[in-house]
């Protein structure tokens, strides 16, 4: 029975590793390859940590399993080793992990700065934010500046509105302003590896560069009430021309509906 339990503890890490190994082929992995430039950096760091962690996991589980096996096969009557520890070992397994951990955190700093530090945002994106995304229970409201103008913090006359669909030009860094009208939400685009909370009272700029034209999910990642799960929206990355075409279509659409109705909808929004 002793050996059974020792094998039990040796067996489960093998199963765990096996599951992780087959996971990508079973589609139990990232929803897709990263579709943004920052996503590649994030995934790179993920795999770096994954390697370090896997080595540690295998090492500790093998150590534990071997210690158990040794205990299970100990001859009856044999004494346990009498030892209070070893300074050498303690120093070794303090210093080695601390170097590894410092190494990991140093590798993160650059990418973190690229994601969050405003001064590091690509200039062209920072100067011309494409849209303001306002989260509310339970939808995403998009406001584009009036074509040819700069996005202002507060709504301006001629701004274009849409709900749950954000169009951005592909293959160029874009910046959007994120805010919320009510409670806290989070802007999460899994395939782009982008996530940022929308905090009441703050306007938070985020930037990303989508590499391939297409549709990408946008979901909410911060509990915002009963309908948290259904804040479903799309980010549509398209070529510069079709993006501009979309905006002008939106503009004429909005103007066609008549002034009265537009004014009404604008006041209802407040």
């Amino acid at each position, binding site marked *: 029975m002793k050996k059974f339990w020792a094998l039990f503890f040796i067996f489960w890490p093998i199963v765990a590793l096996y599951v992780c190994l087959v996971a990508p082929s079973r589609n139990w992995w990232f929803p897709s390859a990263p579709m943004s430039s920052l996503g590649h950096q994030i995934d790179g760091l993920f795999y770096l940590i994954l390697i370090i962690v896997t080595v540690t996991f295998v090492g500790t589980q093998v150590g534990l399993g071997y210690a158990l096996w040794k205990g299970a096969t100990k001859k009856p009557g044999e004494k346990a080793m009498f030892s209070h520890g070893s300074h050498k070992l303690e120093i070794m397994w303090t210093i080695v992990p601390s170097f590894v951990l410092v190494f990991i955190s140093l590798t993160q700093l650059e990418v973190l700065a690229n994601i969050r530090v*405003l001064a590091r945002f690509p200039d062209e994106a920072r100067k011309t934010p494409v849209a303001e995304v306002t989260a509310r229970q339970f939808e995403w409201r998009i406001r584009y500046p009036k074509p040819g103008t700069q996005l202002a*913090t507060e709504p301006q006359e001629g701004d274009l509105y849409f709900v749950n669909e954000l169009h951005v030009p592909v293959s160029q860094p874009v910046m959007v302003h994120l*805010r919320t009208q009510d409670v806290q939400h989070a802007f999460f685009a899994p395939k782009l590896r982008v996530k940022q909370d929308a905090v009441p*009272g*703050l306007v938070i700029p985020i930037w990303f560069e989508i590499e391939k034209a297409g549709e990408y999910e946008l979901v909410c990642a911060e509990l915002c009430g009963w309908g948290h799960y259904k804040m479903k929206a799309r980010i549509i990355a398209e070529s510069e021309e079709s993006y501009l075409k979309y905006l002008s279509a939106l503009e004429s659409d909005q103007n066609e509906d008549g002034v009265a109705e537009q004014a009404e909808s604008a006041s209802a929004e407040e």
Partner: protein
Amino acid sequence: MSHDDHATHHVNYLAIFFVLCGCTALSVVFDVLHMPKPVTIVLVLAVACAKAMCVMMYFMHLKFEGNWKYVLLAPTTILSIGLPLALFPDIGRSYYISVAPQTGVWAPEISDFESHEASHAEVPAAEAEAAPAE
């Protein structure tokens, strides 16, 4: 045990008391003097710290306690200074644009109001100040 302590030290509580009163008066004087704001802040907080030290050392007998006082008070002191310091970069100064309707959306209204106040009242309009109508 605590009874024995008193045999070994004699504190002139009355003197400490007068020091504390003097410090309180000093705080009020600093307020009345209308010095530059940061100077006032530093001065009154320094006075408060001095008073706190007096109370802790003599009234709370910390001066006569053993070394345990450091073990007990060091962590709380570090944490109570550290907490506001750690909150400062996020709450005390927002890294992002902070939108507050009082000063954002309603800014034109506020400035209208203030200019009106300035023209109507003799007192110069400090922030959002108004002379009572009664």
